[in-house]
């Protein structure tokens, strides 16, 4: 599983990355978590804002910090 956290590095983006990593660890899922900070790469996903989270190529949330429970649900599908 590949998870990308899209965001240039502000506190909300950093918090999202932390939540995603914690969720992955707690779920015991084998996943690579990447932080994407390049604005051109972020734009390729067509997202309206950041932080955004992409799981295996699918944009799961845009412009908000997900809860850990939300992230864990995404890991199950």
């Amino acid at each position, binding site marked *: 599983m590949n998870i990308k956290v899209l965001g*240039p590095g502000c506190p*909300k983006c950093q918090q999202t990355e932390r939540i995603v990593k914690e969720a992955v660890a707690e779920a015991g899922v084998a996943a690579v978590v990447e932080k994407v900070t390049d604005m051109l790469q972020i734009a390729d996903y067509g997202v*309206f*804002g950041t932080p955004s989270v992409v799981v295996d190529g699918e944009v799961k949330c845009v412009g908000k910090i997900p809860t850990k429970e939300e992230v864990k649900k995404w890991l199950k599908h």
Partner: protein
Amino acid sequence: MTQECCASGKAIMILACSGGSNVGQIANQAAIELTEEAFGTMYCLAGIGGGLQGFIQSAKDVPVIAAIDGCAVGCARATLKRAGIDAFRHVVLTELGIEKNKNFRLNPEDVRRAKEAVRAACNGAGVAVFKPAAGGCCG
């Protein structure tokens, strides 16, 4: 990196039908000017219509959508509904008394009225301080 970037919870996504008539292009121009005036941020209705997943998810997650249709055909409305998005503020420019035609020399007064209608439709939705993803920090 600034600490006041990213989603504010008060974002207004502006989607114009941008159709092939004066009212479609007035809708487009109104969306441009409202973005320039920092009322909201124009976004790509075509991306939603094309079923691009990042665009659809963005529209589902944004707090407020202002959809501007030039005429009663309602292409912007239909595009959103087809994508499963039912909650949006909606303005139809012909309902403001602007006559639909093929004159693309837009009347600035019509654009002003369109913008005023969008602002009224979004009344109470908050001020857009959200910045788009393609233009700097968190957009």
